[in-house]
């Protein structure tokens, strides 16, 4: 289990090698980048299979809270696996593209991979900040890496908002540290409650603002449309399936460990009710995100805003804080990653085939490339949460937990249900446009064995998880009890064990 450090270190080491290799043999550096990601995927799958109980990996030989610790449990391993898988497929997709990228591009993807895994595994508030910054920097550079100005604009917009977020996060760290004297998440847990409640509320407010930016919650998501649109499609896919996933993970971890939410508890500091903030921000995000996606004529912007909608629903699930809702949130996050990556891959190829990302000009392209069109439909249904496709069980469980919980408002749930109608409409509108009678002769879509391997894997995953959720279910099942601090296999007790207490 302590080998899980390699999930962070291996891509980092490879990334350090790339400037040298890129100087000597560019092709080798690209191939090795892919192989590193693949090896990491294998490692994470291996760890996932052999996983038994949560484990704390200490860094530098110093026990927490003095040193930094990594926390390996089902949640982090599962998400690390998803991130690794997504990045591996993303690199493969980019390698098979007609657009040739420099070695630095792959290096930055590796750094993104490192940082996302760092965010997922770390148990230290400041370390989380460091990894968030690496993720930010590498994703801005990647977004802007296209030849077009759209990407640079998107990256700048992201940069402005994310810098504000990081300032907020650092300020929150300063407040929390000056009051509790520690940066370890497990040790802070509960410490916030002993703080002056106004100070605690201020710190929580700042942390929420920064994590909301990371997680694309309205209105911290003003950058989303431009950034997703301007980025190369492989990067848009990774932003949605890996970066937003890590952001949601951080939200999940921090709200349960640092804010000290128990299952079904309502977190409040003084008169500041955190649960209702999360819940209603989720509702607002779903409505605005789906409405924005509904109006888009640009396919990449549409997918971007649809991710926002999904994140809103997941935030709502995090707010509800029951075992079921966490289960649903994790399930939905994983399936959303898979489906969205598939969609972005297809959209990327359609963009290069037609020269535009305006989907109203894609009519009929699926008639010639029917499997591509069918894959798009699979992905769309997977995101929307239609039964027999992956997204369903997560959404279904989240809605169910919302109706069970005391902390949620039924009105909010009804609003979300109504808003998801728009989601189904715009996805199927685009899916059908692919099969409509073309106005002009559609161009040829550049496919290849690599592309088909990637998309087939993802499409199969969407369908298989949709029809047989049980295998994934067995893994996710462990998460709610491990997230709780109070039992023996919980996060806090595991870290405390490592502390020798």
């Amino acid at each position, binding site marked *: 289990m302590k080998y899980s450090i390699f999930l962070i270190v291996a891509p980092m080491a490879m990334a350090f090698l790339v400037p040298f290799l890129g*100087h000597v043999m560019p092709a080798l550096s690209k191939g090795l980048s892919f192989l590193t990601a693949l090896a990491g995927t294998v490692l994470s799958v291996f760890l996932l299979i052999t996983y038994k109980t949560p484990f704390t990996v200490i860094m530098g030989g110093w026990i927490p809270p003095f040193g930094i610790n990594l926390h390996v449990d089902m949640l982090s391993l599962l998400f690390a696996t998803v991130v690794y898988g997504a990045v591996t497929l993303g690199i493969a997709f980019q390698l098979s593209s007609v657009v040739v990228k420099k070695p630095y591009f792959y290096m930055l993807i590796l750094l993104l991979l490192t940082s996302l895994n760092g965010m997922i595994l770390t148990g230290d508030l400041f370390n989380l900040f460091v990894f968030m910054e690496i993720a930010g920097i*590498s994703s801005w550079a990647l977004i802007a890496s296209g030849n077009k100005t759209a990407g640079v604009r998107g990256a700048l917009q992201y940069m402005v908002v994310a810098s504000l977020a990081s300032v907020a996060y650092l300020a929150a760290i300063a407040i929390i540290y000056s009051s509790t004297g520690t940066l370890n998440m497990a040790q802070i847990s509960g410490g916030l409650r002993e703080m002056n*409640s106004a100070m*605690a509320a201020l710190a929580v407010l700042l942390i929420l603002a920064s994590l909301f930016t990371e997680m694309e919650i309205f209105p911290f998501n003003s950058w989303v449309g431009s950034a997703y649109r301007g980025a190369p499609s492989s990067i848009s896919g990774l932003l949605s399936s890996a970066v937003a996933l890590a952001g949601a993970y951080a939200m999940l971890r921090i709200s349960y460990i640092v804010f000290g939410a128990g299952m079904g508890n309502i977190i409040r500091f003084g008169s500041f009710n955190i649960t209702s903030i999360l819940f209603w921000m989720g509702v607002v995000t779903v409505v605005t995100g789906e409405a924005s996606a509904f109006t888009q004529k640009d396919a990449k912007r549409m997918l971007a805003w649809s991710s926002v909608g999904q994140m809103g629903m997941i935030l709502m699930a995090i707010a509800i804080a029951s075992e079921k809702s966490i289960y649903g949130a994790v399930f939905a996050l994983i399936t959303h990653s898979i489906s969205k990556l598939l969609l972005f891959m297809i959209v990327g190829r359609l963009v290069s085939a037609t020269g535009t990302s305006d989907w109203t000009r894609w009519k009929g392209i699926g008639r010639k490339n029917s499997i591509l069109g069918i894959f798009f439909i699979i992905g769309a249904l997977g995101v929307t949460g239609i039964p027999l496709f992956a997204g369903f069980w997560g959404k279904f469980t989240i809605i169910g937990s919302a109706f069970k919980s005391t902390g949620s408002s039924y009105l909010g749930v009804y609003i979300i249900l109504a808003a998801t109608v728009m989601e189904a409409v715009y996805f199927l509108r685009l899916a059908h446009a692919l099969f409509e009678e073309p106005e002009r002769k559609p161009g040829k879509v550049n496919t290849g064995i690599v592309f088909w391997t990637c998309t087939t894997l993802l499409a199969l995953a969407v369908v298989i998880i949709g029809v047989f959720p049980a295998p994934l279910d067995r893994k996710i099942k462990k998460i709610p009890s491990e997230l709780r601090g109070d039992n023996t296999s919980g996060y806090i007790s595991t870290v405390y064990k490592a502390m020798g207490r």
Partner: protein
Amino acid sequence: MNKIAAILMIGIISYGVYAAFSSTQPGSKPFKRKAQNDVSRAYLAKTVNGKKHSSIMRGMKGLENSSSNIVTAVVLDYRGFDTLGEVTVLFAAIAGIGLLLGGQKKRVITPAGPIISSLAPWIALFILITSAYVFLHGHLTPGGGFPGGAMIAAGFLLMVLGFRTKPSGVFRMLESFAGLSFVLVGLLGFLKKGSFLQNFMGTGEMGSLFGSLFITVLYAIIGIKVAAELSSGFGSFVKEDLEEEHE
């Protein structure tokens, strides 16, 4: 209009923060002289691994960490993983600059004036010596690899300005190898002691120049890396400037 709104907004935020800080609700208050917490106290007293000392003297051996600059000890030893991340941030930023601005038009070289070109090597030499001092003494005095590296980079940049030579591809390799050796040091700790970035070189006398070899090695790596990175990053920018001059 926008400005008035911004001023209003800032007023509101200021009031909110003031209200939060002057809140009289119970709980420990920040910015009050408090008994220092466990974590910092343990760093200062070097009792993280549980060994208690009544007092710590210069020249003492067998401490868990022999750096007398506690900030350095925290940065490189106790929280070395953060520093690895920090190095990676810089690396990512420079790589991003390389990705965005690299591979552009050839630059036009114009020679510098005689005063600069004759003095630059001498000044650069002094800068290099000072910077070596700074990162070798990182565990004793304020300073260390980051400022040291920045100073080395400054020396090189002076040379670049003096002779208008392009920062060579050597920097790229140095960057690679320095980064890689940081990771390798970490992995050696992992192999020898079982924990990533763990000190496997032992601790020497507290307060002596080579008393804490581990920190010195890491700071040297960081110094080289930062120097190489800043130089190559500057290279990416400087090309731009020179081009603009001649357009």
